[in-house]
C-alpha cells in the first residue's frame, strides 16, 4: 500500500468495528458485505422454502394455513431472487471487477456504499410484511393483478421493498458500467477483459433497462390499490393481463440478469482448472450479448395460457427457441475448453461442472416449455418449478458457490478445507436432484404449483422432494461451517493457488489482496 500516494476517495486509515462497514467506500469491504448479506438472505429464504416443503411432505394441511403458505411461496421467491442471488453476484462484481481490470476501486465509491446500505432496510420491509395486519403478500413473487389488490398492508411493504431494491440495483449497475468502461488499466481493451467482467457489463445494462420497468409495474399496482387508478382493473378500462406483459418485460431479462454473471464465473473457473484458455472468447462475448438482446423479445412465453392471439404465440415460441442457439454455443464452448485440457477437480471446478451439467438440463426443460402446446399442459405446474430451480439453483447458485471457493484464497488469504468443500459439493448435488428431479414428474402428472395441499396421486414424489430439500438445506449450513473454518484456521494461501488462473488478481496481487490495490495501474501486455 502506498500511503503517500494522493487520491480522493481511498481512506488510508480504516475505522475499526462496525463504523468501518457503515462508512466504508472500499470495494472489497462492500463486496464482502454484499456476500454476507446475500448468504443471510439465502438462509432466510431457505427457511421459507423448507416451510413450504415441510407442509408438502404429506397430503393434508398439517403445519400452516393456506394463506400463510402463499405468503411463504411469495417471500421465498422475492427474497431468493432480490435478496440472495442478485446481491451475491453484485458482491462478486464489487470484489472482482476492479481487481480484474486493474482499477483502484469502483467509479463511485460513495454511491457504492449507499447502494449496499439500501438492501438491509428493503429486506427488513419484506420480512416485516409477515407481521403486519392482513399478513404478508400472498400473490406469488410475480405479483399478478388483480390478486395484489386484495392483499393486506404486507403488499404495500413489499412494493416499497421492491422500489428500494430496484434503486439499489440501478445504482450498483451504473457504478459497474462506469467502472468497466472508464477505469480499465491502460492496455486492457474491451476484448481483453476477463469474461466475468464482460458478463457483468452486459448484466448491468440489462438491470438499468428493466429494473425501472418493474418499479413502474409495482407503482401501478400501488396506485391501483390505493389511489383509484385502473391500470389492471377491467371495470375501469384496464386489463389484468397488461400487468403480466409489463412484469415479464422485466421478468424475462431478470432471468438472464441472474444467469449471465453465473456464466461469467464459470467462464473463469473452467479454463483455470483445465489449464487451457477459454475456447471461443469472442463468440462467448457475442453469445452473451445476443442472449441479452433476445431476452427483451420473448417475455410473453411466460403467458401462453392467457389467451393471446395465435400469431403472437407462434412468434414467442420461435423467438424463445432461438435463444437455445447462443445458449448452446456457450455450452459447447465450455465443453471445448475442458477438451484436451489437463484437468484437476478442486471444489470450484466441481461446482462449475455441476453448473454446466444441471444448467444444461434446465435449459432443455426450458426448450420443452418453449413449445406452446406442451407448455399449455405444463404451465403453472411443478414442471415449471423444477425447470427454474435447475436454472436458478443448479445454475446461478452453483456458480456462486464455485466462485466463492475459487476466490476465497484471494479474499481472505487462506485456503478452505478441500476435503470438506468436496463433501459440500456432493451433498449439494445429490440432495438438489432428490429435491427437484421428481418435481418434473409431478408437473407432468398435472400438479399445479403454489398449492398447499394436493391429491393422493402426488404423495410419493412430494415426500421424496421434501427429504431432498431438507438435505440440501443442511448441506448449506455445512457450507457456512466450511467458510468459518477457513476464515479462522485456514492454511495460508499462495498468491496464485490455481495453476491455470491468469487474470490480474492472481498474477499481480498477493493473497489476501491488499485493502487498496492497483492504485498505480498495472501494465497490460
Amino acid at each position, binding site marked *: 500500500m502506498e500511503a503517500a500516494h494522493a487520491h480522493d476517495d481511498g481512506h488510508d486509515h480504516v475505522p475499526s468495528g462496525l463504523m468501518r462497514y457503515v462508512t466504508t467506500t472500499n470495494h472489497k469491504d462492500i463486496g464482502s458485505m454484499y456476500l454476507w448479506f446475500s448468504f443471510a438472505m439465502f438462509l432466510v429464504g431457505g427457511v421459507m422454502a423448507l416451510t413450504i416443503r415441510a407442509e408438502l411432505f404429506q397430503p393434508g394441511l398439517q403445519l400452516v394455513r393456506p394463506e400463510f403458505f402463499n405468503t411463504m411461496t411469495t417471500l421465498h421467491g422475492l427474497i431468493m431472487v432480490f435478496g440472495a442471488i442478485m446481491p451475491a453476484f453484485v458482491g462478486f462484481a464489487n470484489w472482482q471487477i476492479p481487481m480484474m481490470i486493474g482499477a483502484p476501486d469502483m467509479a463511485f465509491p460513495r454511491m457504492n456504499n449507499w447502494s449496499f446500505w439500501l438492501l438491509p432496510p428493503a429486506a427488513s420491509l419484506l420480512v416485516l410484511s409477515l407481521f403486519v395486519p392482513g399478513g404478508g403478500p400472498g400473490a406469488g413473487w410475480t405479483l399478478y393483478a388483480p*390478486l395484489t389488490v386484495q392483499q393486506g398492508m404486507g403488499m404495500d411493504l413489499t412494493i416499497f421493498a421492491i422500489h428500494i431494491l430496484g434503486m439499489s440495483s440501478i445504482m450498483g449497475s451504473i457504478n459497474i458500467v462506469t467502472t468497466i468502461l472508464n477505469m480499465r488499466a491502460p492496455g486492457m481493451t474491451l476484448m481483453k477483459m476477463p469474461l466475468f467482467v464482460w458478463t457483468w457489463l452486459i448484466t448491468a445494462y440489462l438491470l438499468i433497462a428493466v429494473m425501472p420497468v418493474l418499479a413502474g409495474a409495482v407503482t401501478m399496482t400501488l396506485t391501483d390499490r390505493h389511489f383509484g387508478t385502473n391500470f389492471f382493473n377491467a371495470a375501469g378500462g384496464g386489463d389484468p393481463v397488461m400487468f403480466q406483459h409489463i412484469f415479464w418485460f422485466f421478468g424475462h431479462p431478470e432471468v438472464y440478469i441472474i444467469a449471465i454473471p453465473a456464466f461469467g464465473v464459470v467462464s473463469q473457473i473452467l479454463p483455470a482448472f483445465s489449464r487451457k484458455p477459454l475456447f471461443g472468447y469472442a463468440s462467448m462475448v457475442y453469445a452473451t450479448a445476443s442472449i441479452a438482446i433476445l431476452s427483451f423479445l420473448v417475455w410473453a412465453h411466460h403467458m401462453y395460457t392467457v389467451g393471446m392471439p395465435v400469431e403472437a404465440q*407462434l412468434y414467442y415460441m420461435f423467438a424463445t427457441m432461438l435463444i437455445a442457439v447462443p445458449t448452446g454455443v456457450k455450452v459447447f464452448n465450455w465443453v471445448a475448453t475442458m*477438451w484436451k485440457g*489437463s484437468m484437476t477437480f478442486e471444489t470450484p471446478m466441481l461446482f462449475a461442472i455441476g453448473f454446466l451439467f444441471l444448467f444444461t438440463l434446465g435449459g432443455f426443460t426450458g426448450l420443452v416449455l418453449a413449445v406452446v402446446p406442451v407448455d399449455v399442459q405444463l404451465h*403453472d405446474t411443478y414442471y415449471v418449478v423444477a425447470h427454474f430451480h435447475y436454472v436458478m439453483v443448479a445454475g446461478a447458485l452453483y456458480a456462486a458457490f464455485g466462485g466463492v471457493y475459487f476466490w476465497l484464497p484471494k479474499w481472505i488469504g487462506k485456503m478452505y478445507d478441500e476435503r470438506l468443500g468436496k463433501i459440500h459439493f456432493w451433498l449439494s448435488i445429490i440432495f438438489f436432484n432428490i429435491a427437484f428431479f421428481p418435481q418434473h414428474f409431478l408437473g407432468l402428472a*398435472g400438479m399445479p404449483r403454489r398449492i398447499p395441499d394436493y*391429491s393422493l*396421486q402426488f404423495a410419493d414424489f412430494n415426500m421424496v422432494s421434501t427429504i431432498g430439500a431438507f438435505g440440501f438445506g443442511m448441506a448449506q449450513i455445512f457450507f457456512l461451517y466450511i467458510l468459518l473454518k477457513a476464515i479462522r484456521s485456514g492454511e495460508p494461501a499462495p498468491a496464485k493457488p490455481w495453476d491455470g488462473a491468469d487474470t490480474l488478481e492472481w498474477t499481480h496481487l498477493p493473497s489476501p489482496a491488499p485493502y487498496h490495490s492497483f492504485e498505480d495501474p498495472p501494465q497490460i501486455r
Partner: protein
Amino acid sequence: MKVPYISKILATCLLLAVPCLSMAAWNINFQPGNTLLADDIQQLHLIVMIVCVVIFVGVFGFMFYAIFKHRKSVGHKASNFHENTTVEIIWTVIPFFILAGLAWPATETLLAMRDTSSPDMTIKATGYQWMWGYEYLDEGIQFYSALSTPQGQIDGTEPKTENYLLEVDNPVVVPVGKRIRVLTTASDVLHAWYVPALAVKQDAVPGFIRDTWFKAEETGVFRGQCAELCGKQHGFMPIVVHVVSQEDYDAWVAEQKQKISGKELGAPIKLVADSQ
C-alpha cells in the same frame, strides 16, 4: 423413555405412508390423454424429449470423456487451442435446423389447438374465489361447482378418500365425441381452468372471456384443478368433468331443466360468499 417416543413417531409415519404409497403410482409421465389433441401434445413432448436426450448424451459424452481422459492425474498435458472458426460455425448453424425441425410439428399442433371454430356446444366456466360456476349457453343451465372433500380429511381428522381434493358437488357433464367450446372468465381475480387429460388449460380473466375447446374420445370422469394462484383456497377449487354418452347427456340436461323450471330463468343464484 426416548426410544418408544421415536418409534411411535416412526410407526405413525409408516401408517400414514402406507395408504399413500398403495394408492399412488410412481407416475413419471403425463396423465393418459382423452382427446386427440392430448395425444398430439404427448407425441410432441416425446419428440422434443428425444431430441434433448440425444443432444444431452452427445454433449456430455464429450465432457465426461474429457473428464476421464484429459485430467492431470492421468498425466494429460494441456493443449493450447482456443479457437476453431469452422467448428464454431457448425455448432451455431446445426441447432438452427434442429429447432426448425421442432418448430414445425409444434406449429401444427398449436394451430389445431387454437382453432375454436365450429363447436357443437359452448360452456362458460367462471372462476370465483373459490369455486367454479358453469353456464351451458345453449341450454340455459347454470350451477356452481365447489370442492366436496370434507374439511376433516384436509385437517387429517378423517382418513383421506380416493379422490381427495379432486371431487366436487356438481360436476360438469358433457357428451362424448362432441367439440365442446369452453369460455372462461372470472369474477374476482385470475383463475385457470385446467384438466390435464383433456389437454385444456385456459386462464380466466376477470372482465374478459377467453375460449378453448376439447373433444373427449371416451366416456369417464376427468379431474383437474385451478392452475393460477387465486388466493388462499387456490388449492381447493377442483374441476371435475363427466364425459357421458349422448343419451345420458340428454337425460342429464332434461333433469337440470326440470330443476330450474320452477325458478325464473336467469335469475341470479345467490352465491355463497365464502365457501370455507
